[in-house]
Every structure is written in structure tokens, then in C-alpha cells.
């Protein structure tokens, strides 16, 4: 009796729950099962693997379940430069993608507004790279940035690069590749946010003495923050763990990212605990950074 009356009061202050709660819950079953089997279970296994100990006197790749906490300081001590570099490269690529992607999204969402065909065409162009293979596109970038290529030639001619300077196998090449790979993930959420922008607010800004740049900073940008946050996250998170760009466009010493290390440890050296440790650290660090970022951006009350 008591419980029922409490439930009644709680409901009174809230919007009514949608009808058919049980049916809706049943619809969740496939999703929950899927996540349980393919996400929760593997993460548990990963955590366990990160604490495995080598079998004494065993062969390469033979480990036994243990709680070997030293795995963590050992792995971090050996691979912290690659870890830091991953975040730096991903951060740089995210910033470049935002700077390049924002005007693209703005043109598609605001300038092309009302012209459905043009808008559709531009969105297709943004997504078009996905129609070809990820690996092929990255190899193409290798060609574009090659020593004898037009890009390097032009940069040398402009004296941006010294006469013997090169782009391929540098950090810049990796960041360029990362930016290119994840640019659509930046542009699409920004487009979605800017499409809802009411141009009358920009007129109100101008009417209230704000120069175009100020109107952008005080009105357009704050109103598109949900898109900025979504876009930067969708770019940054996959970029941190990416290893295709760094292995194809970088070299083996100064541009190695953590994904390459995990790949090498796991598949070639069969060092499963270290690969697992690095994966766990990567996951936790991203989680912490993203939480702090979303809090800071303060987009809760915008949506």
C-alpha cells in the first residue's frame, strides 16, 4: 500500500511515462544482449588480460591468469612517449578538422539553405570519401605527399620547406592523414547543429551593434556548441587509437602512435598483457578527458 502511494506521488510531478513500458523493455533485450556479449564481456577479458603473468619457463605468448599489477608501470614506462604522441596527434587533427570543417558545415547549412539540391549535393560530397576503402585513401595520401609529388614541390617553391625538405614520414603527414580521415565526422554534426541556426538571430546581433566577427563569437558559435562537441569527440576518439595513418604515412620511430604499439605487441610479439594494459590506459584516459571536456563545454542546457 505504502509503496503504491509513493509511486503515485512521484508520478504526479513528472511527465507521464509512455504507455506500454513492458513492451518497450522487451525491445531493449537484443541491444542489451549484444552489448553484454560484445562489449562488457570483452572489456572484462581485457582488464583480466592486462594483469596476466608470463608462464615461468614457458614459450612466447604463454600467459597465466594473475594479478600482476607491475604490468602497468612497466608498460607505461616503456610506451609513454607513444601514448602522449597519440593524444597530441589526435588533438592537432581535431583542431585542424574543426577549423577546416566549420566553414564547410556553415556553407552547407546556412549559405545553401533553401536550395535543397545544392545542399544535398554538398552533403554527399562530404560523405563521398567513405565510398572507397579507408586503406586505399590513406595510400593515396602517401602518393600525394611523396617526395617527388606536387605538394612537396609547391611547398619547396614557396620556401615553406627547405629544398631537401619532405612531408612524407613526418608528424605533419600523419596529422594531415588523420584530419582527412575523420573530417566527415566533424562536418556532419556541425552541419546538423548549424542547420537549426535561425538567421534572424544573426540580424538581431548586427542590430545590437555586434560586428560580424562578434556575432559569430557571441551567437553563432555558442548556438552550434552541441555540434562542436559532438564533432570534436567523433574526430578525437577514433583518431587517438588510429594506427593506419601513422603506419602508412609516418615512419617507424618518430611518429609511432599507441595503436601501432598495441598492434605490434599483440600480433607480432604476442605480448598480450602489455597490449591489454595500453588499451585499458587509452580507454580510461579518453573517458576522463571526454568527461572533463563535456562538463567544461557546458552544453547540457543548450539541448
Amino acid at each position, binding site marked *: 500500500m505504502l509503496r503504491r502511494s509513493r509511486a503515485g506521488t512521484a508520478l504526479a510531478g513528472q511527465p507521464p511515462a509512455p504507455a506500454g513500458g513492458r513492451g518497450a523493455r522487451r525491445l531493449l533485450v537484443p541491444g542489451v544482449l549484444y552489448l553484454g556479449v560484445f562489449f562488457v564481456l570483452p572489456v572484462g577479458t581485457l582488464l583480466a588480460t592486462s594483469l596476466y603473468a608470463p608462464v615461468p619457463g614457458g614459450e612466447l605468448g604463454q600467459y597465466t591468469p594473475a594479478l600482476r599489477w607491475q604490468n602497468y608501470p612497466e608498460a607505461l614506462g616503456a610506451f609513454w612517449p607513444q601514448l602522449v604522441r597519440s593524444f597530441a596527434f589526435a588533438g592537432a587533427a581535431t583542431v585542424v578538422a574543426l577549423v577546416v570543417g566549420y566553414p564547410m558545415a556553415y556553407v552547407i547549412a546556412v549559405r545553401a539553405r533553401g536550395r535543397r539540391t545544392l545542399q544535398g549535393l554538398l552533403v554527399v560530397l562530404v560523405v563521398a570519401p567513405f565510398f572507397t576503402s579507408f586503406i586505399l585513401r590513406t595510400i593515396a595520401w602517401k602518393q600525394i605527399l611523396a617526395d617527388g609529388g606536387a605538394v612537396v614541390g609547391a611547398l619547396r617553391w614557396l620556401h615553406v620547406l627547405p629544398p631537401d625538405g619532405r612531408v612524407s614520414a613526418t608528424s605533419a603527414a600523419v596529422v594531415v592523414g588523420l584530419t582527412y580521415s575523420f573530417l566527415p565526422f566533424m562536418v556532419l554534426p556541425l552541419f546538423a547543429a548549424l542547420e537549426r541556426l*535561425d538567421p*534572424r*538571430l544573426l*540580424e*538581431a*546581433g*548586427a*542590430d*545590437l*551593434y*555586434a*560586428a*560580424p566577427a*562578434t*556575432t559569430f563569437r*557571441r*551567437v553563432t558559435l*555558442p*548556438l552550434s556548441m552541441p555540434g562542436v562537441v559532438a564533432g570534436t569527440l567523433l574526430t578525437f576518439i577514433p583518431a587517438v587509437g588510429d594506427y593506419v595513418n601513422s603506419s602508412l604515412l609516418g615512419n617507424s620511430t618518430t611518429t609511432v602512435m599507441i595503436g601501432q604499439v598495441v598492434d605490434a605487441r599483440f600480433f607480432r610479439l604476442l605480448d598480450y598483457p602489455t597490449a591489454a594494459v595500453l588499451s585499458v590506459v587509452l580507454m580510461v584516459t579518453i573517458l576522463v578527458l571526454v568527461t572533463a571536456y563535456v562538463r567544461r563545454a557546458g552544453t547540457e*542546457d*543548450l539541448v
Partner: protein
Amino acid sequence: MTAVGTDDPTVERATAAGAALEIEGVSRRFGDFLAVDDLTLAVASGTFFALLGPSGCGKTTTLRMVAGLERPSAGTVRLAGQDVTGVPAHRRPVNTVFQSYALFPHLDVLENVAFGLRRRRTRDVRARALEALELVELAHLADRRPAQLSGGQQQRVALARAVVNRPALLLLDEPLGALDLKLRRRMQLELKRIQAEVGITFVHVTHDQEEAMTMADTVAVMNRGRIEQVGAPADLYEHPRTAFVANFLGQSNLVPGTVVEVLDGGRVLGVDVAGTRLRVPAARSVAAGPRVLVGVRPEKIRLVGADEQVGTAHDVLRGGTVVDTSFTGVSTQYQVDVGALGTVGVFAQNAGGTPVHPPGTPVALAWDPDFAFALDGDEEPAAGTVDLDDEP
């Protein structure tokens, strides 16, 4: 200009009575469509000016050109004597209350009001914004978001956000359009009070003739990108110069006729209207030739018995039949069929003692010829009548 008590702190800071606005030969073309056609207009400083016209007449485009949000295709806009035609919106001492309010959804009410002050790096931003919110009686909602306010409250925030900057000119683009009738009437009086209090020049765009007449000192009636007539509300109502003004401002009965004689030493025109001789004061005729449209406002007409004798001081149109009677409380509105002349509207004030004539009653129409007016006979008698399908 506006008489206000000097002990009011908001007034002391007001820029002296706002600035005069002059629009000279301004046109605005959108492709093939001429929205504003060689428009010339002067608004005296410190006045409440209304730009009245049906939707699509170019009044909002005119306002936007004054605000700097639209560039004229030709012509000059001058503010306080200075040419501002090429000055961008953010450098004009002009603020607008937009039809959609256009409040910034990501800022609270106080920051919305403070927006203009912050851009101009004014001192005491908070205090001044709060003061403006008090003017519209919303200071207690300063920390709300616009989405949490009602339509009427948003409208007042939009007003405070514009007034707080003490612009030389305040533009109002149908700001009351989205409010319900009762609230609209209240806000009309409120706006008038605020204008008197701050002394800024107000230019108000509306398609509601009652709103324009209630609020403005001067009304310009606009039609198809041009000004039809400018004047004080009473002046426009009593002395319309075009059929459009006669019909758009209140109602008019316009019937075609021919001037056949000049009476009383040139002061009165004798007009033949379908065989009946009517009189129109010469001063109230704007017709160039003998063909005229004779107009009488419905409330100036009295219904009398079909054969009742009326003194020579009045003009009489006989042979009418009441076709519709609507009792509205303060008055009874009749539609009277007068044969070849069509239907004439009559408002009889419900002062008591006057009988209500049911449809079918044969009547005669009588009025004091001093209230009759004559327009150019080439005009379309139905111009400016409200077409129900056209109104938004």
C-alpha cells in the same frame, strides 16, 4: 518634445528626443519585384510614427533598410541629418524589435538585454539592463531563459533589449502580431507609455489599422511599395485622399458620381449620383476632373424612414432596403441595398431610443454633407478593402 517629469532617472539619460529620419527616393528591388518604389518619407524626432499597410506592401522592407539589414537599390536614408545608406547595421544608432522577437536562446533574459550594452562597452551594464527590465516590469525574471517566458513576456524582453541602448531610432516590426487580442491592446498602451517616457523616435510597422491609429502620432499608409498618404490618425480618417486609404482605415461607402454644379460661391460641389443630387464640400474633394467617388463613413449615416422628410441641411439617398443587421452591443451595423449603387454600410450607435431595423425594412439614408468627401473618379472603389483571404 515629450513632456515628462524630470525626476524620472530613465528620462535624464535619454538622448534628447531621438533623431529625425529621412528616407529619400528609396527603392528596393528583389529580382523582378519592386518591393519599395521610390519612397520618400520624413519622421520628426521624438514622434511615434506608424507605417501601415497590408502584408506585402513593402513596409517591413522599408524598416529593414532603415535598420541597415537590407541595402536600398536606390535612394538615401538619413538619420539626424547624416547619410547612413552605406553604414552597416551594427554601426547604426538604431535598434529593432523584431516580429519574431529574435531573442538569443542561449542567454538569459538579463544577458539578452545587456547584449547591446556589452558590445558598446557601456559602464554599469547590469544595473542598466535591470533598469530596462523594470521599465517593462520583468526584472523578476532576469535569470530565466527566453524559452521559459510567455509570448507577451518575450515581446517585452525584446522591447527592453532595444530600448536599453537608448537608440536614436527604435524600429518595431509588427511586434504585437503574435499576441492575442487582449494582450495586444494592453501592450499598445504600454508601448505608447514607454515611448512617452524615454522620448525615443519610434517607427512602428503594422498591418493593423486600429493599432496604428491608437499608438501613433503620425501614420503613413503604404500600398504596393508607395506611400498613399501621411498624416495624424484623425486627419487620415476624416480626410482620406485615396480610395485605398478610405477603405483601409476604417470602412467607407464609395459611390461613383459626376460633379454637375458648384454651389455656395465655390465652397460646395453638387454631385449627381445615379440621379440623386449630393453635396460635397469643395475642400474635401481631391478629384481633378468631374468624375468623382463620393464617400461617407458608415457612422456618419443615419437611417430614416423610407418616406420621412429630412431638412435641407442633410443629403438623403432614398430607395434603400436593409439586407443585413448585426447587433454588436455598442452599435448596430446595417448593410443597406441601394439598387444601382450597391450596398452601403451604416453604423447606428446604440444610444437608446433608436429602433433596430430588421432585414427587409425599406429605409432612406441621411447624412450631413459636411462629412462627405470626394476622391478621384478613376480609382477603384474597392481598393484597400480587407479581403479575408489575403489577411495573415
